[in-house]
């Protein structure tokens, strides 16, 4: 008798669970169908075109922009590469961004300061070696003074070279960003002005 009662309760419970489950699914499906707006989905004017001609023009414009973007990606200078170039040889990155005057000035200053620093360091070491072996008090003082002055020039020039190198690295970031920003404008101009176009897929002649 008791087992029968348990089975009845279990059956009622299962039935309730099934009804609730079906109810949830049914409500979801009905609700989904009512909220989906098929007319809004199929409305072609939402993208800005009013007819098929507009749509075709729009598509052509997108295709052109994609081509230009590919061209931009081909011609744009990667910042990291330019940074490494300028870090290795100051001014190299600026040469790549077509800032030839600035690049020449940076490279020249860097060469002059480094070579000057090397020259004064060499002078300092000649006197410093004599200082190290001197035994007479006047000679000790004289050679030390003669070594100290060119050594300070060498350090100053090395400091200047470091400052110029730092500026060069800082400048190449700005130069590269400017170059890439102008490049897009330049590509657009070229595209408009010339009937002969360079595209990622090759040359194209427009009539």
């Amino acid at each position: 008798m008791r087992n029968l009662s348990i089975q009845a309760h279990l059956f009622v419970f299962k039935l309730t669970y099934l009804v609730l489950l079906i109810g949830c699914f049914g409500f979801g499906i009905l609700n989904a169908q009512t909220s989906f707006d098929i007319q809004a989905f199929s409305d072609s004017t939402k993208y800005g075109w009013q007819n098929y001609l507009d749509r075709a023009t729009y598509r052509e414009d997108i295709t052109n922009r994609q081509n230009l973007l590919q061209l931009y990606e081909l011609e744009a200078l990667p910042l990291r590469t330019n940074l490494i170039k300028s870090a290795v040889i100051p001014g190299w990155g600026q040469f790549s961004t077509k800032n030839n005057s600035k690049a020449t000035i940076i490279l020249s200053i860097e060469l002059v300061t480094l070579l000057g620093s090397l020259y004064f360091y060499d002078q300092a070491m000649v006197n410093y070696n004599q200082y190290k072996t001197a035994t007479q008090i006047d000679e000790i003082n004289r050679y030390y003074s003669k070594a100290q002055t060119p050594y300070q020039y060498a350090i100053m020039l090395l400091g200047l070279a470091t400052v110029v190198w730092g500026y060069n690295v800082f400048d190449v970031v700005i130069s590269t960003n400017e170059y890439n920003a102008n490049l897009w404008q330049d590509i657009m101009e070229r595209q408009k002005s010339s009937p002969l176009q360079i595209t990622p897929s090759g040359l194209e002649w427009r009539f």
Partner: protein
Amino acid sequence: MRKILLILLILGALLVSACGLKRSNPLDPVGNPALEIPGTPSGLRYTTSGSGPGTKFVNLTWDSNSSINTDGYYIYRSLAYFNTFAVVDTVLHINGNLTQNFIHSSADDSTVLPGDYWYRVSAFKTYHGGRLEGRFSEPLFVRLP
């Protein structure tokens, strides 16, 4: 931008002021304050051998330095005031004497001949790094007949 430039200038000044050459000479009194600089010999005077045949010599005498900073003396000679002076001999300092003495004789050195010479003297003190030589005395003109 100005702040960056200012920082760079300060860094540069620090770099320059911090980077002096090391006083690595073991005989440099600036790098080794324990070293005593030998005093400059003073009161240098001379007598010479007479004219005529025989041994020629120049007898140099000068006032004694303090034995605290002097172990000996270098004797230099030159043919002119501005010429290079060459060491002719080394004399050890004799404690207790008021004057020190050196005889430059043709008996020991064949270059001692009649003529005009310039002599000067400097003191030295021996340290573990070598001999630290002090300043030179004023050159003394000597005419050897």
